[in-house]
């Protein structure tokens, strides 16, 4: 994958379509586009695909039962579970079909379930079942005794968004998409009737079509395109992660009540932890992903109400993500449409459920591009993604033996909490991961209960050695976030570090 280093205003190239933003949606669009003939570019201001809001996602694939009937987001999410299952096969990725249960804890909430079922079905989803307390207890032995009814669906599932964003981007690049990381857009100018000149912190790109998939920054990109009337409303949601040792407490995605202040949601993660959310507050700004004590306590309360056995001491980390809605659509709906002022530019203003709707969004964007004049001619050869990173921890014993036989470094555990091997870490670095957070999100080294206390120094060394850079240049998440500041008095490049 291309490395983000140069800052001179170099000319980076010319393309048919430039996608601004390599989050899950931008990456999904890039991969769909890469099936077509033409030149495409994907640019991202962060150091790695998915390092914006995508890495702070709940990582759940829902059915559109919480989307208003007839809404765009409802329509785009209708068959999301099937779409993701198919993509998982194509990309060799993990989709864990855990199913979901929307619980009613009070008599008056039962009606909400029927309404949700109706909404979901009207939006095109199938597979719902209203279940009673015995079935709930059978499916979820630790759920609150207050649960008297549930809306159950088998196919919704969980995945790990950073892993998917990376895989989609990798597959797009494999099929010819140019990727520019660490490239923040600073200007978009109409060069002539056919081309835009997109200026980034890494250089300039000429493009005929511009896709604004910049997430939280899509209002700023819109303004650069001349659409100054697009505004975003932000909400910050806090989520908690619990240790794998308590994962038996929850087997399905469990939902309770929803309001402006919260979405009550506790679920297994793709990797077998539990995730609990979501308590919402207004962030100070787009970068405000801070978590307060109060956020944590409020979030914890949400979980305890659904699963009383949940204990705060089993929480291993907390984080927050920022959601947005736009002023162009009502009821918090998506706005995916050509620019009102800039020809051949398309705005993708999504929000929740952006991940769920991403495949549908990519289809819609391509349809809009065609309507705007892009010739959509399929390539003769589309390369399927090479095998995903084989994971040692989840492999059965016989597969583990084969992995070690093929590469003995699979026998060397680097991260003890998640049982991540040296081979996996080196693999990821060789496939383009160049930060500590990148290694963490793609291999899970540092993601477990010790949060990198034990393996951090090893990961640092593997990054430095494999990338051929001094350890002082290794960062957590891109420029300015260096892990260490220098060497000890007796340390140094050939000092105490080499033992």
């Amino acid at each position: 994958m291309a490395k983000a280093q140069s800052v001179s205003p170099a000319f980076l190239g010319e393309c048919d379509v430039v996608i601004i933003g390599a989050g899950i949606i931008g990456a999904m669009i890039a991969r769909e586009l890469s099936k077509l003939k033409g030149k495409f570019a994907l640019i991202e201001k962060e150091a790695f695909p998915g390092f914006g809001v995508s890495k702070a996602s709940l990582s759940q694939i829902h059915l559109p039962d919480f989307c208003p009937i007839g809404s765009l987001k409802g329509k785009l999410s209708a068959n999301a579970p099937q779409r993701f299952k198919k993509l998982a096969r194509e990309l060799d990725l993990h989709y864990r079909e855990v199913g979901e249960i929307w619980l009613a804890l009070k008599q008056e909430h039962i009606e909400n379930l029927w309404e949700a079922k109706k909404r979901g079905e009207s939006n095109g989803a199938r597979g719902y079942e209203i279940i009673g307390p015995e079935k709930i207890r059978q499916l979820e032995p630790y759920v609150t005794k207050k649960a008297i009814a549930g809306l159950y669906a088998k196919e919704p599932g969980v995945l790990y968004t950073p892993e998917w964003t990376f895989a989609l981007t990798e597959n797009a690049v494999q099929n010819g998409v140019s990727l520019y990381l660490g490239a923040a857009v600073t200007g978009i100018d109409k060069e002539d009737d056919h081309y835009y000149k997109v200026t980034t912190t890494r250089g300039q790109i000429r493009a005929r079509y511009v896709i604004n998939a910049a997430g939280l920054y899509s209002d700023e990109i819109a303004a650069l395109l001349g659409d100054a009337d697009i505004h975003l409303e932000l909400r910050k949601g806090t989520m908690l992660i619990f240790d794998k040792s308590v994962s038996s407490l929850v087997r399905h995605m469990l939902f309770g009540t929803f309001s402006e202040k919260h979405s009550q949601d506790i679920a297994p993660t793709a990797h077998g932890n539990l995730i609990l959310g979501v308590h919402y507050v207004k962030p100070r700004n787009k970068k405000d992903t801070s978590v307060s004590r109060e956020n944590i306590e409020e979030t914890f309360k949400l979980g305890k109400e659904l699963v009383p056995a949940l204990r705060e001491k089993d929480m291993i980390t907390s984080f927050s993500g920022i959601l947005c809605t736009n002023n162009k659509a009502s009821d918090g709906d998506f706005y995916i449409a050509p620019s009102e002022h800039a020809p051949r530019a398309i705005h993708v203003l999504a929000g929740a459920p952006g991940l769920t709707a991403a495949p549908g969004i990519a289809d819609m964007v391509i349809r809009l591009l065609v309507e705007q004049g892009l010739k959509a001619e399929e390539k003769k050869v589309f390369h399927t993604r090479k095998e995903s990173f084989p994971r040692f921890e989840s492999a059965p014993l016989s597969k583990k033996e084969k992995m070690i036989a093929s590469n003995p470094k699979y026998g060397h555990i680097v991260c003890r909490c998640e049982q991540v091997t040296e081979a996996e870490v080196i693999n990821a670095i060789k496939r383009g991961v160049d930060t500590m957070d990148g290694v963490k999100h793609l291999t899970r080294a540092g993601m477990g209960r010790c949060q990198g206390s034990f393996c951090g120094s090893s990961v640092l060394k593997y990054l430095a050695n494999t990338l051929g850079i001094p350890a002082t240049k290794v960062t957590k998440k891109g420029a300015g976030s260096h892990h260490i500041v220098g060497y000890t008095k007796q340390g140094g490049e050939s000092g105490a570090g080499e033992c």
Partner: protein
Amino acid sequence: MLKRSKLDIAIIGSGPAGLAAAVEADRRGVKNLVVFERDELPGGILRQCIHNGFGLEKFKEELTGPEYANRYIKMAESAGIDIELNTTVLEIEKDRTLTSVSEHSGLRKYECKSIILAMGCRERPRGALGIPGTRPAGIFTAGHAQRLINIEGYMPGEKVVILGSGDIGLIMARRLTLEGAEVVAVAEILPYSSGLIRNVVQCLNDYEIPLLLSHTVAEIHGDKRVEGVTLVKVDTDWNPIKRTEQYVECDTLLLSVGLIPENELSKQAGVLIDPKTGGPYVNDCLETSVEGIFSCGNVLHVNDLVDNVSNEGELAATGAYERIKGKTLGRERIMEVEADEGVGQVVPQKISGDRETIFYLRVKKPMGKMVLRVGENFEKKFSYARPSEMIRLKIPKKIFSQMGPSVSKLQIRCEER
């Protein structure tokens, strides 16, 4: 099929507990034993503890961590004990089958007569505390920073705030200062230090590093790298007191906020864990709830002195030896030991009373003159007690003999006097 071997004793971890257990088991004549070590060298966390103060009891001299470890490594080497390095134990089953993995030998299975758990502990990370704020680079647990400095030769930061006055945090305050970093302050949420007094004196006072008691970090600032923290005074319930916030500029935050016995493998094997210690329930031979599985050192409970860790290793090895020789481990009569009034935790939690027994316990809060009572017929006076200093209490066999056979519960409690 995986290669399977039979072992008399498998020891997991070659830190001070595992090494002492191995040397003791060998001394008693157990030769078919293997020590499993995931790191590249034996010694465990002692390898990075280059300060002195180790071994005052065991060797009657002051050694550094690596020196202390080397004493045992040499004993193990001269006894020809097999230490499998770079080898991780992936799983232990209830029937004491163990699966290990390494680059050099791949996957292996061992059927063991006894297993001694000596995996040590891990540090409580930021996430578990829920410290508010952003998530920039520059936040380390104290032990991670210690490894970076003492083993890798890297400086984690230049201007440092330390949260928590655990011993590693105190040791790191001095270490960072000696390496030229500025340690701005050590903040401790409790009204007293959670480390040993000698460490407060030698690592903070001697370097004029302020120890802010009843303080915590209210917020972490910085987008890419830590830029500062907000410190705040707290009341007795740890609630922040308004208008006591102060912003402190720094590029690094070190956390020394507690150690957690690392019992994931133990739990897999079905070993029951005492929520008070975070380690297994054990009897007076340090045998866990699963027959033939023993536990010692920081995986049993977090110790403050390495000498005690070594003693526990030896005791666990004795128990494992007796077990494989088919001796009963005093299971005929069992007294439950209970941490009662004023006592936070105690090990062992079950005893037979048929041998001299050492109890390791911690008081709940700092106390002045106090008396510790064990059951009805033993007491010992102390001039003071602190939670940070583990109390070692040796009870002779005759005390247990004096208790009637009907006594099935032994309460340990302390009272101010």
